[in-house]
């Protein structure tokens, strides 16, 4: 960015000499707009806080689950009753159509990954006054309905998702055994149609960790619904 700004007077000069006289003023002013980017201001305001970057240690939490118990990463076990090699922390909810489309895939993902040592925990981050369909009672029903085999917990004071920097449901943070963030974002590349998946990002990331490698891609934008906060 700085380079462009430094070069800008030069660029103007070149444009002035190169383009037809009549158009230069208009073109130059358009370039100024773009390069100084005043339009960035409203963008910044709406961006979620920075949140976790790849390589950061994710905070643990203590959240109530649909089983009435409090859940933490520190006390989680994998399908073999072992201390996990990693955690698929997934922000999701009952009401977002994308979250719903992913439910069967989340169930299958947990079954597969938990056996490999990477259990999934689902956190419902929405404000339940704004989204009554996401309250704990509704979560219990949905989980029973859909056969969730993973822990489904609620971020009832909306304090956990901002620490992670989550902005959507569904959105995954894959942590290793030391809670270091190794992959962040989408579950796969085809939200609407499981049949059409060509890149199963979370599974690919776990496979990379199993080989002692860094996941690639390490971040893919999660497609979904904005988390609802008051």
């Amino acid at each position: 960015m700085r380079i462009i700004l430094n070069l800008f007077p030069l660029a103007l000069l070149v444009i002035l000499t190169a383009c037809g006289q009549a158009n230069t003023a208009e073109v130059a002013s358009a370039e100024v707009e773009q390069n100084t980017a005043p339009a960035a201001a409203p963008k910044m305001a709406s961006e979620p806080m920075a949140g976790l970057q790849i390589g950061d240690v994710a905070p643990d939490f203590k959240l109530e689950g649909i089983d009435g118990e409090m859940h933490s990463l520190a006390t989680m076990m994998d399908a073999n009753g072992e201390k996990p090699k990693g955690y698929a922390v997934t922000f999701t909810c009952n009401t977002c159509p994308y979250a719903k489309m992913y439910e069967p895939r989340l169930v299958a993902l947990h079954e597969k990954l938990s056996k490999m040592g990477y259990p999934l925990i689902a956190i419902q981050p929405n404000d339940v006054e704004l989204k009554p369909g996401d309250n704990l009672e509704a979560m219990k029903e949905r989980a029973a309905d859909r056969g969730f085999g993973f822990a489904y917990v609620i971020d009832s004071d909306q304090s956990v998702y901002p620490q992670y920097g989550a902005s959507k449901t569904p959105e995954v943070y894959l942590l290793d055994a030391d809670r270091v963030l190794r992959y962040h974002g989408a579950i796969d590349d085809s939200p609407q149609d499981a049949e059409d998946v060509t890149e199963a990002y979370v599974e690919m990331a776990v496979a990379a960790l199993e080989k002692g490698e860094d996941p690639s891609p390490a971040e893919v934008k999660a497609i979904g619904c904005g988390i609802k906060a008051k």
Partner: protein
Amino acid sequence: MRIFLYLLPLLFIACQASTPEATPSAITALLQPNSEGLSYPVYDSFDDVAPLFNQNDDKTYVINFWATWCKPCVEEMPYFEQLAKEAGPDTEVIAVSLDFKKDIETKLKKFVAARPDLPPVIALADSKYNNWIDRVDPEWSGAIPVTMIYRGDKRVFHAEKYNSYAELKSSVDAIR
């Protein structure tokens, strides 16, 4: 010398911008219905609608991404309806629906039929979102609603819901 090499692309863009390559008919053509029984066109690939985002004429393009299932999108739609009604001929308001494939011929059709004041609607069924949302704007996080407003090289990407008509209008006026 090195500096001039850097500037070459810039020069190219700047000069190109001043030539009247505007093809309003491209937009008109894009808005034509192309599916039996639907009053709006349906496109399977972002490539088909890419021209929506790079017109270079004396018009302001206001392109809203929404879906019938998205509550905040539906809540802000009246502002786009009002804008489409009140803005002059140099402003094009277009509502790009990201309704799911299964809903395009059902829910979306019903919604459009019930809302005569809607701006022109395009249904975009390209569900490999990660392949194209960055082409609209790298700041797009992956949720809707979002609105891209541009006029020539001036762009505003609004990554959330508009809360009033005045707020939308000020975004539009900001790049005139």
